[in-house]
């Protein structure tokens, strides 16, 4: 079956949802150590809403960018919280990036990661080292950009994106939170992985599985 780009993205969101659901309790436990223990629930709610919205759409006649736009509003309306605006803005930026090229080539996939990171940065006014999801997204973007520069294939690129994101998320253990509710804890946030960075890795892994599988066909 040759899927169009919209269907591939829908499958990607579906995989993300399953992966987030599986890691829900773990994410909430991480959040309980430094926050209010709802990160897993919030993320799961958001991606469930994205799935429910995408299920209603006629994907065969949609562009990839439309899928991200629909995902943005569904996620935002369902979630609010802080992850709502952050990921909604990320999805909107991804939609804008895809309007240049709707085909989901390896370069297009890298552009998605880069645009999402830009959106999260803008909305949250954050940067690397704040102990947030950006500590996974920024290294992931750097890996994507450099993979593009060396004209790596999709599978190769996603492998390096995920490795960079995992290393970035792990590095949040040794950081003191600068943003979000955990920031109020000061040095007590030391030693715990940031739940936002952990969920970013889950998302990127599901993206890798989706695009990597497509590339293998």
């Amino acid at each position, binding site marked *: 079956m040759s*899927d169009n780009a919209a*269907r591939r993205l*829908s*499958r990607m969101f*579906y*995989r993300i*949802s*399953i*992966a987030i*659901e*599986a*890691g829900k*309790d*773990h994410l*909430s*436990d*991480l959040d*309980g*150590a*430094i*926050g*209010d*223990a*709802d990160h897993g*629930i*919030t993320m799961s*709610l958001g991606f*469930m*809403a994205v*799935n*429910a*919205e995408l*299920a*209603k759409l*006629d*994907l065969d006649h949609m562009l990839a960018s439309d899928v991200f736009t629909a995902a943005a509003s569904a996620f*935002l*309306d*369902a*979630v*609010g*919280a*802080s*992850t*709502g*605006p*952050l990921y909604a803005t990320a999805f909107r930026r991804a939609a804008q990036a895809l309007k240049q090229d709707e085909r989901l080539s390896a370069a297009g996939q890298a552009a998605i990661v880069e645009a999402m990171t830009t959106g999260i940065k803008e*909305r*949250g006014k954050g940067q690397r080292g704040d102990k947030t999801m950006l500590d996974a997204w920024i290294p992931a973007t750097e890996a994507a950009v450099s993979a593009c520069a060396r004209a790596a294939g999709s599978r190769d690129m996603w492998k390096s994106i995920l490795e960079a994101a995992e290393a970035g998320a792990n590095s949040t253990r040794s950081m003191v939170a600068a*943003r*979000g*509710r*955990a*920031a*109020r*804890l*000061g040095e*007590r946030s030391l030693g715990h992985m940031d739940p936002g960075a952990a969920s970013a890795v889950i998302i990127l892994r599901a993206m890798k599985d989706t695009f990597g599988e497509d590339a293998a066909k």
Partner: protein
Amino acid sequence: MIVKAPSARKNGTVRAGAEAGTEPIPLRYGDDPYVWACWLYYEDRMTQGDIADIMGISRATVNSYLADARARGIVNISLEPSRLSSLSIAQELKRHFGLHDCLVVPSDDNARPLIDRLGGAAAQALAKLLKSGDTLAVAWGRTVLAIGEQASVPGLQDVTVVQATGGTRASFAYTPELCAAAIASAVDGKLINITAPAVVSTAEVRDMLLRETLIESQFAALAKANKALFGISSLRPNSTIHTSGFFESVSLQQYLAKDAVGVVAGRFIDGQGNPVAGPLDDRTIGISLDRLKAIGLRIAVAGGFDKVPAILAALRGGYVNVLITDAATGRGILNADGVTELDQKLSQRPRLDNTVALPSNFRTHIKKFLNDPDDVVEEMLDGVVKAHAAYIEPIKGSHRALVARTGPRPGKVGLVIGGGTGHEPCFLGYVGKGLADAVAVGNIFSSPPPGTIFQCANAASGGQGVLFVYGNYAGDVMNFEMAAEIAAEHNIEVRTVVTTDDIASSPLEDREGRRGVAGNFFMFKIAGAACDRGLSLDACEAVTRKANARTFTMGVALEPCSLPQTRRHNFEIGPDDIEIGMGIHGEPGVIRERMMSADAITDRIMDRIFSEMKPAAGDRVAVLINSFGATPLMELYILFRRVAQRLSAKDITIEANWVGHYCTSLDMVGASITVLHLDNELTELLHHPCDTAVLRVG
């Protein structure tokens, strides 16, 4: 791990093998407490409390042994494969379509006709889903009748069953009248039939009939339906729609020509679930698709492979949020919608990577008044809207955006507040005359989304601008900022005061980084009074900023809170520890200390407050002693007593005080103390009359 001898055993609590006068030698299972606990639990079927007594350990430890034993593979729980598969299909359907619930009948049991099996499953589900006081709209069909024949739901009170469509002169067994009657008798409910034909000869006749008082009253009853039960019909040649003679076949052809794939409650839909316009629309008497969608619980019961496109269409259109079907149909629906993960999921189920070690005193069972934990916010809001109907009403039917009945008016600055739930009576209790005009409501401890906040701004706007007042949390700031951007696009001027009263949350030099907690109470009161007095947007903003700068709060938690969805504590605290500097979201505090006396705790807080407030003798303050949820008034008064002593010793007068639940954190044990350092202007605004569900002045 050393297991103590079973000396802690209590009289009569042991059910296994305790003969009179003889203490049985406990089986130690190679000194493995996990195996021992599991044996007692799964084989001897003892309660965790009894096991704790026998093993001489705490019940929480037993609980963690049992959980660990499963994680380590000591205990394996297996499900019968066909049941597991139908369960997985149900889960996938639920997830994929965002359903409230889904029940899938195993497909391998072909002893009875599918309609009977679906009817039986739905009959059981109905017993769980239907509650006293419900109004259930019932459509017609073979499956619905099968439910009526098999259901028996005793013990309900005040259930009304309303026929969802008009009737028919056709003489089949499952007419709308008979279906509604069968369900009504099964649930012992009051039956309301629609005493008009489902399809009449012309649009004029329909309009005339709908104006008839009797039929009007029947439709009024239908409009009250909070639950709906219906089948889904396909438009295949042998389907009920064709064979029943319910519809004229000429009309059916016209709907088919327009790509109709199914019928829901007598209305035609296409593959995406959109209504299909056709010759019968103006001549149909019955529930509309829009009205059906607005019903809270929409239970569809349908199965059979030929119905896959119709059921998929109904799901896509959002007409269904509880689906009862069979495994083959469920799998077909998922495959038709491009879901292929199911099969691989059946073979490899995701394993939880639980790297966060839980302490052994971790309690896993917390009791709460809940129905479905996922519905906790909606159900609370449903109750709130009913309880406080005198003060608030939903904006455009949404319980997430509530507006004051007597708040917004032309020429007045609108005040919009909001935030996550779990803080009740914050924030919705402060909406009414003289206080906030509208409130945006989020999920538990989560900011509402921008769309909801904008709806509030729009409803609160009286042409003089809108003031947003909310606590300083990253999520709230982002969502309210996005809402302000939307408001600007609609020419509503928005100013924002982000509250930062929690003095424990950041040092003084980072005042702007502090979070907003129970002191919101005072900021809302001052802002509401300023708006009610008709001050300009500038003036309202300025005085609210002043109130924020002069409000000081500090909280202490004794025990953590638990979230309804996890029913677990969101952090752990030692038996003798307290958290000073606790926020209102159950975030851990800033310092953890040993438990101390009420006066010592109050002094710690008041010392910090005085150091920032720098009061002079003769100053006036307002005081708020606020429970985090589980701390009773008794203890709050003890705190207030000491606060009053400390203030009096500095010759500070308490102008006004409030003691109670004003900004909670679910069921957290703890309290916060807030002091508002008054001046003349703030004193005047504090005494300005207001009338809301929770706060009344004047």
